[in-house]
């Protein structure tokens, strides 16, 4: 009896702090094996490289929290990012370009959510479909050619505000916004309720479909923003950009302790999850581990994270 109680305790501690301990361990170990790792330049670089993942992860966290999944993020980022780039070229207005990217992303996300809730389609299938369609559409529209001559547009990916890189600043704003939604707003609490127990949410008078649709819309908006930052960093509209982005973002959220079955998880975990993935890839790169092996490691980590999630959940049920 006492044994099992103690076990649950450890499991609970893990589910609350696990990723932070792992992140810290990763940083310490990396610093020991590679002196280059802990330099300010390297750290800032790692964060900058992973900002897109971090931004999109904030969006997909809401979708995962309400028990759904979104696989279209990468394509949506490319689609919206390219449109933003085209707007930049056409109008020369960076602000308009940014707005275009975000709004287009939001529209696709809203459509995803609408079809999923109104037609009662599994989100896995619907977003797989829109992943294909969005990618195909942007390749067709751009004839698979990058869009260049973006002028000020590159600021979103490369610019600085004082000493701080603009993309990192954008990420921080999004983190604060998402944290605020999740913890301080009714909408965020409803996301947890829907993911925790759909029937209870409905019986409490929550409009479940509306909440789910909003989550997809939010994800779409952030995917669009992620696309803008991504295209800004390479200073061109890349119709093939953002591939694998959905997997990296979902990996970050899951590793950060958000449950695949919904209802459990917080924004701090997602920050740590995104940084962990970034640092891990970075240290492997510094150690000259081939990209192929890096991908294997990523796969193993996401499997481990989900296994731990399931174990912790079973543990706390008893």
């Amino acid at each position: 009896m006492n044994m099992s109680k103690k076990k649950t305790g450890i499991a609970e501690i893990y589910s609350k702090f696990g990723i932070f301990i792992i992140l810290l361990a990763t940083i310490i170990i990396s610093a020991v094996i590679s002196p280059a790792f802990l330099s300010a330049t390297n750290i800032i670089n790692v964060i900058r490289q992973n900002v897109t993942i971090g931004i999109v992860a904030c969006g997909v966290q809401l979708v995962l929290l309400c028990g759904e999944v979104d696989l279209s993020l990468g394509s949506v980022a490319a689609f919206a990012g390219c449109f933003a780039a085209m707007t930049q070229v056409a109008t020369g207005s960076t602000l308009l370009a940014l707005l275009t990217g975000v709004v287009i992303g939001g529209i696709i996300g809203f459509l995803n959510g609408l079809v999923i809730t109104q037609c009662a389609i599994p989100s896995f299938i619907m977003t797989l479909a829109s992943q294909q369609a969005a990618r195909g559409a942007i390749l067709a529209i751009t004839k698979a050619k990058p869009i260049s001559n973006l002028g000020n547009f590159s600021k979103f990916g490369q610019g600085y505000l004082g000493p701080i890189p603009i993309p990192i600043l954008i990420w921080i704003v999004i983190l604060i916004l998402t944290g605020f939604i999740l913890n301080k707003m009714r909408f965020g609490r409803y996301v947890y309720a829907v993911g925790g127990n759909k029937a209870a949410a409905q019986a409490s008078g929550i409009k479940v479909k509306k909440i789910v649709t909003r989550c997809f819309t939010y994800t779409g908006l952030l995917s669009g923003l992620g696309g803008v930052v991504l295209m800004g960093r390479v200073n061109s509209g890349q119709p093939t950009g953002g591939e694998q982005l959905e997997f990296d973002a979902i990996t970050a959220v899951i590793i950060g302790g958000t449950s695949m079955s919904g209802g459990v998880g917080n924004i701090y975990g997602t920050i740590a999850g995104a940084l962990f993935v970034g640092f891990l890839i970075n240290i492997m790169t510094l150690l000259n581990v081939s990209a192929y092996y890096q991908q294997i490691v990523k796969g193993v980590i996401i499997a481990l994270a989900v296994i731990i999630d399931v174990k912790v959940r079973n543990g706390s049920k008893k």
Partner: protein
Amino acid sequence: MDYILELKNISKSFPGVRALDGVSFSVKKGQVHMLVGENGAGKSTLIKIINGMYTADEGDLYFENRKVETHTPKHMMDLGIATIHQELSPVLDMSIGENIFLGTETMLIDWKGMYERAEKMIQELGFDYDPRAKMRSLTVSDMQIIEIIKAISRNAKLIIMDEPTSSITESEVAVLFKQVEKLKAAGIGIIYITHKLDEIFQIGDKATILRDGQVVSTHDVKELKKAQIIAKMVGRELKEVYPPKENIPGDVILELKGLTSKKYQNVNLKIRRGEILGMSGLVGAGRTEVMRAVFGLDTYQNGEIIYKGEKLPVKGVTEMIDRGIMMVSEDRKGEGLVLIRSVIDNISLPNLDSYVRRLFIDDKKVVEDAQDMIEKLAIKTPSGKTLADNLSGGNQQKIVIAKWLLHNPEVLILDEPTRGIDVGAKYEIYKIICDFAKRGVAVIMISSEMPEIIGMCDRVMVMSNGRVTGELEKEEITQEKIMTLAVKGVEYE
């Protein structure tokens, strides 16, 4: 008229079932209206129409003398209808406070204010919960109390309680009833669904009896007698009837010697062919765990299982089924049936191997055998293709038994075979069990219903706290003796 709620000629059908047929029903302020009926009588459907989960096919619903046009959970809740569900549905990973106010929050959450209000409310009602604690940390009865607090917090005018005492202890029932009295005094109408007839007389003002989706009658509780209710519920005079005991036990087929694991110690037990052995004891005594080990679902640490004279190796379920040992789980819906598949699919599921002809399944034979079972066990279903989910509990249980019947079991373990099944269907299940015994099958019946154990079993083993505390035979099997053995040793630990 001070009716809170009036239903007029409500009808509702599901594929294959007419769940409600012209039901009229009304509740006054400050009144506890009891809703009784067998399983499948339509009580659950009725309350789901009242709380907006379902929309009626026909008929009208009036709330405070106004016709209700929008039938959504949200609208019904806004009107002042709250439901305390039988299968409770809190959000386990949220706090108590959040659960109480779920659905009524303001755009921005005022955490401090919310917890203060929750705390105040909990105290005013005389309870002692920390509103910041996770719902997961509560027991089922505590969750029930929270649901009531939640209903009160929304100024509900009508509260529906769906079998609220089915999973709570006596002292908690007293607490609950006190709350019901308070709600009554405050002018709140209550619809109270129950299977426990005594409760009707304890707290009821009016009682409506449902049968087969229709209202049989509505009475003032004062003018009502228990026997009358039972007769109206089943449509016939009710007696607990069991098929005659005429089993002739043969030789020993299965023997447990000193079986031990964490949940039970040193269990010794013999079962003969053609015998019905009862396993009695309180919930958690270890009966199910022992039988799960026999069936190969769990492993054991010590001891041996001897089957047909030889020691059984510790193997999995498939092995045991091949040898003729089968078990019907107490969790019919969870482990016994694939609810979204048809009756035929369910019956044939564990037997598919035997239908394979050159790689493919012989569909004709599958349907033939399943139809045969549907007739033999008198499974009431519109057709073999009807989904298992659409049948009543009794008929679902028959499907589970049919699965194994096709497999020719030699030892059949039944775990709570009649739980949640109405009286009429119970008798049919009993007859089927006796038929198994007559054909020489050794039947082991785990049951928490004492009359059933006494009425059906040739021999009874009683377990308490993981140990066998006694064995009773024939005339020795009485309620008192079983109970004495069942509580033996509980004081320790």
